[in-house]
């Protein structure tokens, strides 16, 4: 649903949360945009939006609309952030087991695929 400027200002004042996983408010997002963030990847790195349990499935569109509004672009031109494995948060124990169980020379068993670390 489209929101008017007045309404969005009102939402900002009311401390509305956009990223529920990381508790990031509209005000914080707008501040980051005002300070020069122009992409979803930048917002992610600055604020951790979209990095929680739902991996941005809830807030991604809302963030894109906010960016589009400020940049005067259609939402179609706001590219989503980079998608990397894992597609959902996993336990660290799982990652360490993968490394332990990886056969020698099978770098592919690490999460990064091609690279071994």
């Amino acid at each position, binding site marked *: *649903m*489209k*929101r*008017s400027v*007045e*309404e*969005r200002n009102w*939402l900002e004042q*009311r*401390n*509305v*949360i*956009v990223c*529920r996983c990381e508790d990031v408010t*509209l005000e914080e997002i707008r501040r980051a945009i005002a300070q020069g963030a122009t992409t979803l990847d930048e917002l992610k790195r600055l604020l951790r939006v979209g990095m929680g349990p739902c*991996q941005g*499935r*809830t*807030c991604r*569109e*809302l963030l894109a609309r906010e960016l589009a509004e400020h940049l005067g672009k259609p*939402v*179609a*031109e706001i590219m*989503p952030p*980079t*998608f*990397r*494995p*894992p*597609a*959902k948060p*996993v336990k660290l124990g*799982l990652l360490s*087991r*993968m490394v332990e169980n990886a056969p020698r020379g099978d770098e*592919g*068993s690490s*999460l990064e*695929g*091609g690279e071994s670390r």
Partner: protein
Amino acid sequence: MEYELVVVGGGPAGLSGALKAAQNGVRVAIVDRQEELGGQLVKQTHKFFGWSRRGAGIRGIEIGRRLRNAVLAQPHITVFTGTEALGYYPDNSLLIEGPSGVSRITGKTFLFATGAQERMILFPGNDLPGVYGAGAVQTLMNVYGVRPGRSVLMVGSGNIGLIVSYQLRQAGVAVRAIVEALPQIGGYAVHASKVRRLGIPILTRHSIKEAHGKECVEGATIWELDDKFRGIPGTEKDLDVDVICLATGLTPLGDLLWQAGVSMTYVPELGGFVPIYDENMETERPGIFVAGDAAGIEEASTAMLCGEIAGLAVAAKLGKIPRHRFEEERNVLARELAALRSGPLSSKVRTGYERIRALVQGRRGS
């Protein structure tokens, strides 16, 4: 373990694709995060429309049960339930996490039928317990037999909002109102009239202003919207509700497609970013197919048909069926699909698919 086809998502599209491929001799693996196959069908207690051969008059749960039984009886299909696909890698492998831990499976081809995610909207109090997506309410009631609360405000009058409102009433939960930001009701008239006969008001040009409550939802304020979707001060109404149910639309779930480097494009009529794919449901990465809501938000009957087309195309690509037999059968399915999409209610998705067709043709021509 290597399979000829790895299907990600065991909903109507994925199961139909897996079946069609397996029936033509393809060795298939299905990966699904839920314990039970069927996707959204497992909670759809309403009857389907359309054609009788395509499940019209049958409840969604029953369609899901039939697909599931057919899949489980099919010796060419290996099923990984309770298993999440974590990552797609360029060596055609998929990292999966299931009951027996983490492993990698590879596929000669892939069918991503990963479905959709629900849209969220912004309003003060939108993070209070008691604010649900419509899908969650349906799961609670129809799968687990749990009522989400005693009194509901439904936001959104598309088919999901209307159907869930009806089911809430069937479960003995009050629905105070359905608010719709647009000037007209989004869903089918048949669903809207059922809801209205129960006395549930559908308020168009209305939206939620805010949710109230300290620890959880204790009430909601709605208001009227003007032509520019601005709330009109002075039109506020307070509703005594403990549940706010958001049925504000779906958007395709394409995380793994992005990971796989499939070309994507933004098509508002199909719900957001969707993969670019041809008439065989194959994306621009050869061997990667899509079907169902992940390829564009639509409904289960068309999802099943698109899944079948994809499954058939996989069989042809792997040389399991001769080209002419594939084309014959594909054309029958394509005609059926076009007929299902021919009604006035499908004009939006038709526009969306035309955009994708035009993109594909433009690229072929260049």
